[in-house]
C-alpha cells in the first residue's frame, strides 16, 4: 500500500516538474537534435548568454563537454562554453537578454536621486540610461554607446562604488527589518494564543470551582469566595499579560533604531587599522612619572656645566633612562604565559596608581 502511494506521489511530482519545464508548449522540439518532449519527457532547455540560442540539456552535454566550441545553430559563429549555459528565466528570449543587459548597466549607472540637484535632472539622467540600454538591446550605435559607458565608468568610479555600497546596505537593512517584523509577528501571535488559552482554562476552572462550591454546606458563602478568587486571579493574569504586550510593543520600536545605528556604523567603515610592528606592546609606562629635576649632588655639576650641555647632552634623557631601568622588571611575570597582554598587567595598575615617586 505505501509503495503505491509513494509511486503516485512521485508521478504527481513528475507531472509538476514537467509543468515547470513546459513553459507553455507541450510538444516543444529541441532545435538542435529535434528531440521532442514526447520522446523525452524530462527535457530541459538551456541558453547561453552569448547568443541566446535555445537547446536541450543533452545537446549541451554532447557538444560542449570537450571544451568550448561553436554554437550549433546555423549562421551563428559564437564560441560557447558549457559553464555559461543556464536555465531560461523568462519565456520571452528578448526579455531574457534585456535583463542581462540591464544587469550590466545597473552596475555602472547606479546614481541616486540624492546625487542630483533637482528631480528634473535625475529624470533626464534616467532617460539617458534608458536610451543607452535601448541602444545596446537593439544594436543601435553600439560603438558609440560602448564608448559612452566606458567614459561614464571612468569619470564616476568613486561614486559608483559608493552607491553600490549604499544599495547593498539598504538591502541588508530591509532584509533585517523584514526578519524582525516576522519575528515580532510570531511573538505577538504567541502571546495572543496564550491569552486565549489561559482565559479558556480559567473559565473552565472557575466553572469547576463553582460546582464544587455549590456542593458545600453553605453554598452562598463558598460561591462568593470562589468568585472573588477568580476575579483576583484573572486580574493578576491580565496585568501580567498586558505587561508582556507592552514589552513586546516597546521591543518593536526600540530595535528598529538599533538596526539603523548598527548599519550606519558598518557604513562609516573605520579607516583600515595602522600596522603595528610591536604587535600591541604598550610602551607607555604606567608605574611612574618623570620629574623635571632630581636632586642629586652627583649630577648638579653636570646640569650647570655649559661645556657638557653645549655638546647636546640632555640631563632629562639620563633621568629617564635611569628610572626606566629601575622599573623595567615591574609587571613582568615569568610564570605567566601572556605577559605582554594588557589583561595580565591590569591588576597591577590598581596598586600602582598612587604613582611611585621615583625620586628616592
Amino acid at each position, binding site marked *: 500500500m505505501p509503495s503505491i502511494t509513494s509511486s503516485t506521489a512521485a508521478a504527481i511530482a513528475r507531472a509538476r516538474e514537467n509543468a515547470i519545464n513546459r513553459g507553455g508548449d507541450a510538444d516543444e522540439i529541441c532545435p538542435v537534435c529535434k528531440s521532442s518532449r514526447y520522446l523525452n519527457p524530462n527535457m530541459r532547455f538551456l541558453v547561453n548568454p552569448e547568443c541566446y540560442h535555445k537547446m536541450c540539456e543533452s545537446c549541451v552535454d554532447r557538444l560542449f563537454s570537450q571544451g568550448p566550441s561553436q554554437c550549433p545553430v546555423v549562421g551563428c559563429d559564437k564560441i560557447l562554453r558549457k559553464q555559461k549555459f543556464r536555465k531560461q528565466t523568462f519565456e520571452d528570449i528578448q*526579455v531574457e537578454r534585456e*535583463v542581462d543587459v540591464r544587469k550590466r548597466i545597473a552596475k555602472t549607472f547606479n546614481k541616486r536621486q540624492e546625487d542630483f540637484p533637482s528631480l528634473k535632472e*535625475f*529624470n533626464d*539622467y*534616467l532617460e539617458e540610461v*534608458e536610451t543607452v540600454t535601448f541602444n545596446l538591446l537593439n544594436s543601435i550605435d553600439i560603438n558609440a554607446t560602448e564608448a559612452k559607458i566606458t567614459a561614464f565608468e571612468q569619470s564616476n568610479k568613486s561614486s559608483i562604488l559608493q552607491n553600490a555600497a549604499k544599495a547593498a546596505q539598504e538591502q541588508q537593512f530591509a532584509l533585517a527589518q*523584514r526578519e524582525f517584523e516576522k519575528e515580532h509577528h510570531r511573538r505577538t501571535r504567541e502571546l495572543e494564543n496564550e491569552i486565549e488559552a489561559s482565559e479558556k482554562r480559567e473559565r473552565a476552572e472557575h466553572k469547576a470551582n463553582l460546582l464544587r462550591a455549590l456542593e458545600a454546606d453553605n453554598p452562598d458563602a463558598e460561591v462568593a469566595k470562589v468568585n472573588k478568587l477568580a476575579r483576583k486571579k484573572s486580574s493578576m493574569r491580565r496585568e501580567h499579560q498586558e505587561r508582556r504586550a507592552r514589552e513586546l510593543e516597546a521591543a518593536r520600536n526600540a530595535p528598529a533604531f538599533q538596526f539603523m545605528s548598527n548599519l550606519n556604523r558598518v557604513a562609516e567603515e573605520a579607516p583600515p587599522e595602522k600596522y603595528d610592528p610591536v604587535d600591541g606592546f604598550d610602551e607607555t609606562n604606567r608605574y611612574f612619572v618623570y620629574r623635571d629635576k632630581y636632586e642629586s649632588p652627583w649630577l648638579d655639576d653636570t646640569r650647570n656645566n655649559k661645556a657638557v650641555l653645549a655638546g647636546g647632552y640632555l640631563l632629562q634623557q639620563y633621568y629617564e633612562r635611569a628610572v626606566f631601568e629601575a622599573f623595567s622588571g615591574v609587571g613582568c611575570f615569568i610564570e605567566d604565559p601572556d605577559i605582554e597582554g594588557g589583561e595580565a598587567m591590569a591588576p597591577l595598575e590598581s596598586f600602582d596608581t598612587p604613582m611611585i615617586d621615583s625620586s628616592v
Partner: protein
Amino acid sequence: MRFQIDDLPVIFPYPRIYPEQFQYMCDLKRTLDAGGHCVLEMPSGTGKTVSLLSLIVAYQQHYPEHRKLIYCSRTMSEIEKALYELKALMEYRAKELGHVEDFRGLGLTSRKNLCLHPSVKREKKGNVVDARCRSLTAGFVKEKKEKGEEVESCIYHDNLDLLEPHNLIPPGVYTLDGMLKYGEDQKQCPYFTARRMMPYCNVIIYSYHYLLDPKIAERVSKELSKDCIVVFDEAHNIDNVCIESLSIDITEDSLRKAARGCTSLEKKIEDMKSTDADKLQQEYAKLVEGLQDASTAREEDSFMANPVLPDDLLKEAVPGNIRRAEHFVAFLKRFVEYLKTRMKVLHVISETPPSFLQHLKDLTFIEKKPLRFCAERLTSLIRTLELSNVEEFQALQEVATFATLVATYEKGFLLILEPFESDTATVPNPIFHFTCLDASIAIKPVFDRFWSVVITSGTISPLEMYPKMLQFDCVVQESYAMTLARRSFLPMVVTRGSDQTAISSRFEIRNDPSVVRNYGNLMIEFSKITPDGLVIFFPSYLYMESIISMWQGMGILDEVWKYKLILVETPDSQETSLALETYRTACCNGRGAVLLCVARGKVSEGIDFDHQYGRTVICIGVPFQYTESRILKARLEFLRENFRIKENDFLSFDAMRHAAQCLGRVLRGKDDYGIMVLADKRFGKKRNQLPKWIAQALLDSEMNLSVDMSVAAAKKFLRTMAQPFAQKDQEGISTWSLEDLNAHMRKVRFQQEEMEKMQVDQADEAVNGNGREEYEISDEEMDEAMMKLG
C-alpha cells in the same frame, strides 16, 4: 403631511408616518447638524428611503447652503426605486407648497442602460457598449471632425455641445426611463447629460462604485464639493465592495492578452512615429513637466483613471525611464514577462508588496517609482495614440493598475499565488490574487472629503463593527426597533429535530443522515403548513447539492412534492431568473412553491419575497464563509492585528449579517407577515448579533425549539394572522397620523421639560441636602461637646 423637527419644516409625502421613521429623521438631522458620519439601522420595509429623502430635501431647501445629496445604492432596481420615490416626493412638495421648487435630481448608471445610439445600444455586453461609445465620442473624434475628416460620431452626443453647458436638461426629477424618453425627444445623449449635469444637481443617485471604485470615482465624482451629504443605502456589504474595488486577479490568460496588447502598442507607436512623430514628441514634452499638466487633458473620454494616487504623485513628473513611449512599452513588457514567470511556480505563495517589489527588482531591475506611474502613463499613451478599440488593452490596463497599486501601498495588501484551483487538482491553473485586506483604504477618501456620510441598511448589526472596519468616527449610531400593532413576524430558533438530536451545519456532522433527515423533516412540515411561498437558504452551493441528493435518496423531496413545487437556485443567473419566475407564478396561482437557494447568492441579496412570495423563510445552518480560503485567512489576520477584531468575532458577524439579510427578505412592510426559522444549534448563542428589530421579536421561549414545537408555534401564529386586521387597528401604535405625531412631540417636549425640572430639582435638593447635613453634623458635634462639658 407637514411637521417640524426642531426648526426644520419637513414635508412627508404620506398622510401617516411610522414612529421609527420619525425617529430616523430626527437622528439624521442631528447628524447633519453636527456635521459627522452616522450608522443607522432601520428595519426593512419601513420606508427608509422615503424618510431619508424627505428629510434631506427639506434640509436642502430650508438652509441656505443647499448641500447636495449623493445617494448611493447597490443595484439598478434600487436606484430606479429611489428615483421614483424622489419624484413622488417632489410632486407632493410642489402641491403642498403651491409652487415648483428649482430642483434637479438625476440618476446615473452605465452607458449600457442609458444609450440611445441605434446600433450601439443593441450590444449585449456592458464593456462592448462602453468601448464603442468611447470610439464615437472621444475628444479626438471631434477634433478630426472639425478638421473636416470623415469620422463616425454619435449624433446624440454631438447635440449636447449645442446646448448651454450648465443647463442641458430643465430642472426636475428624472427617473432613468424619464431620462431616456427626454433624450429620445430632444435627441441628446442621456448618459452624458447626466454626467455633465452632476455639478448642477441637488440630488444624484447612483451606484456605490461611482464613489468607491477609484478607477471610476476619479472621473465621475471628483467635482463634488465637500459639504455634500453622502448616503450609502443597503450598506451592510460595504466593506466587501471596498475590498473588491481594490483587488485584482491576474490569470495566465489575462497575461497573454496583456502581452499581446504590448505588442500591438509597440506596432502602433512605430506607425505613429512614421506618420505623426510630432504628437509623440508633444506628449513627451508634456510628461517632462509632470503628470498634472497631462491630466488637465483628462476628460470624460479618458479610458481609465488612476487608482487612488496620492496628490504628490500627480504633481510629480513621470520618471525619466518611462517617459519615452518605446521605453515604456519595453518596461511593460518586462513586467508582464516577470509576472508570467511568477505564475509558473507550483506552490502557494503569499507575500507582501515590499517583498514582491524586492524580488521584482532583483530579477528585472524594475524600480518601485516608475511602477507607481504605470497606470497613469498607460492612459496618457493610449490617449496620445488615439486608440479607440480599447478593449484590446483591457488586460494590459489591469496589469498596469496592479503595478500602480502594488507600488503605492505597502500595508493592507497581500499577493497570493494559487497555482491549483482546488487541493486535488493536478493541472495547474494559476491565479495571482492581489487582494486588499483593508476595507478602509477605498473608502478613506470619501470620509476625508465629505463632512457627512450616512451608512444605513436594514441589517447592519452589530453597529460598532462598521466604524471599526472602515476606520471612521461616527456621531450617531442607532438601531431602531419595529413598532407593530400585532406580532406580524415570528422568528424562531430550531435547535433539535423531532427526535431531539441537535441539528447543525457544523462541518463534522453536516452530512450525518440524522441531521439531513431532520432538516428534511423541517422542510416537509413547513411546506405543509405554509401558505404560498417558502424560501430555504443554505450556507453554500456545495452543501445544498449534497443535501438535496441525500433528500432525494430519503424520499423527502417526494413528500414535499405533494404540497409544493420545488425550485433551486444555481450559480447560473439565467437559470436562476427562470426559477424565480416560475416560483412567482406558482405563488400567485395558489399552488405555492419551495425555493432552495444559497445565503450568499443572488437571491439572498437583491430579491424581495414580499407578501405571498414568502411566508416562511428557513435558514439551514449558519452561513459562515469558506474558512479555508487563503484570502479570507489573510484578511482575518489583518483584522486581528490592525483593528483588534478576533477571527471568530468577524466570522460570526459576517455569517449573521448574511443570515439577517436572508431573514429580512420575507418581511417587506408592516402589513406583511412571515415566519423566520433559524435552524441550527449554534444560532442559540448568536441572538445578540441579530438586528435589534429581529432580536426583540425573538422570545426566550422560542430560542431552543425542536421541529415539532416550532411547527406548533408556527400554526398558532398563522392562525392569528388569518384574523381580519383593519387599518385602524394600527393607528396611533405603528402608524401615526399628524395628530398622533403632534401628541408625541408634545409628550417628548413635556418629558424633556420634566427631565430638566427634575434635574434642576435634584440640583436644588443636592444643595439643600448638603446644607441640612452640615447642619445635622454640627448639631451632633454640639451634642458631643455638650456631653463633654457635662
